[in-house]
């Protein structure tokens, strides 16, 4: 049977992509972040995952306001890279595990979620800024899932938590032996508009990491407006971390924790290991 062996929460940002593409990863302000990603990658790959389920949000690179899906899962065999305005970044096509993705789609619907199922989607920086850092060889197949944090009305954090629980159940119901890792990307604090553009909220970010470890369900009782007020309007992406956390069993332990407030963002990474019985 499939099992969930680990979970990761990590930031995604065009700044990460930019630093990577412009070979700035060894430069002093960036080095701590990229070193932390490298160590997280080593930690992840040591656990020999068979598939990575990546919960992120699109930034109007795939979806539009004609019909923005609340929750999606990709069931394609592979995925193309989005052009966010600077041409698609040069990575190979991203491979998936189609059979497992289709199983998840069916099971999550059975578990009470009306998922949008996508047969074709382009992956933007929500996926693509951290993933080459976590799996540089592109060795592990991925399954993309998105949450709407752009077009109101947004799902509640509670609903995002429940999605994670439904995902966790669906993973465990897959009859083949598969070592699955759930990754939630986004956040931490950032504000991209208005008089507070560029402000970072490190005290809240650290509290978020603490709650994620000690009382994650409490985070599910917050409202989106709370997250926006505490960490900036665009930090509400942390619901993807919540969904990741909810997918893991309650026995999951936070083994990795990293926080780095720099530039326009509070960059964070958290790694959870699920004890293998």
């Amino acid at each position, binding site marked *: 049977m499939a099992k969930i062996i680990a979970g990761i929460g990590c930031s995604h940002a065009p700044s990460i992509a930019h630093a990577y593409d412009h070979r700035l990863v060894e430069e002093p302000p960036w080095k701590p972040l990229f070193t932390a990603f490298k160590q*997280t990658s080593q930690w992840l790959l040591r656990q020999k995952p068979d598939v990575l389920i990546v919960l992120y949000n699109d930034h109007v690179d795939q979806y*539009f306001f004609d019909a923005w899906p609340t929750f999606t899962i990709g069931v394609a065999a592979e995925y193309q890279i989005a052009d966010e305005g600077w041409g698609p970044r040069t990575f190979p096509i991203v491979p998936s595990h189609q059979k497992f993705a289709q199983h998840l789609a069916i099971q999550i619907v059975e578990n009470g979620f009306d998922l949008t199922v996508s047969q074709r989607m382009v992956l933007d920086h929500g996926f693509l800024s951290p993933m080459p850092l976590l799996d540089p060889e592109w060795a592990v197949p991925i399954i993309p899932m998105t949450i709407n944090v752009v077009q109101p009305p947004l799902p509640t954090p509670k609903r995002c938590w429940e999605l994670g629980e439904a995902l966790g159940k669906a993973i465990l119901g897959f009859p083949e032996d598969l070592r699955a890792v759930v990754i939630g990307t986004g956040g931490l604090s950032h504000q991209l508009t208005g008089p507070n*553009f560029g402000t970072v909220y490190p005290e809240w970010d650290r509290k978020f990491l603490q709650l994620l470890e000690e009382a994650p369900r409490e985070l599910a009782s917050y409202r989106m407006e709370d997250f926006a007020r505490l960490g900036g309007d665009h930090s509400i992406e942390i619901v993807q971390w919540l969904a990741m956390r909810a997918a893991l069993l309650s026995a999951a332990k936070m083994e990795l924790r990293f926080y780095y407030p720099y530039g326009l963002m509070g960059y964070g990474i958290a790694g959870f290991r699920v004890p293998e019985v």
Partner: protein
Amino acid sequence: MSTYEISRMLYSLRDPMNRETCRTNPEVYYRHFDLDETELQFLLDRSWQNLVDAGVSIYLLTKLGATLNVDLLEIGASMRGMSREEFLLLVKEQGERNQKYTIPLA
């Protein structure tokens, strides 16, 4: 003001050929879409905060930024009523103040 049409224009800038056309003559490009005069003026003036206040997503504005070679730092500085240099200094000072909150990866 419904932002659907201006959003549609900005979304079209995902296509590199559209970006090239827009770059060549932005006003002509904008006028292909059914925008109202206020929106059009905000675009021509590059009034980023006015566009945000009108309800346009920052994730769409960055695509126009990419087209016109205006980066997020410049967009943000203008939203704060600062020069790029002033804003970069502010961000640097914020980073120094916040350094104490760093958690190194254990």
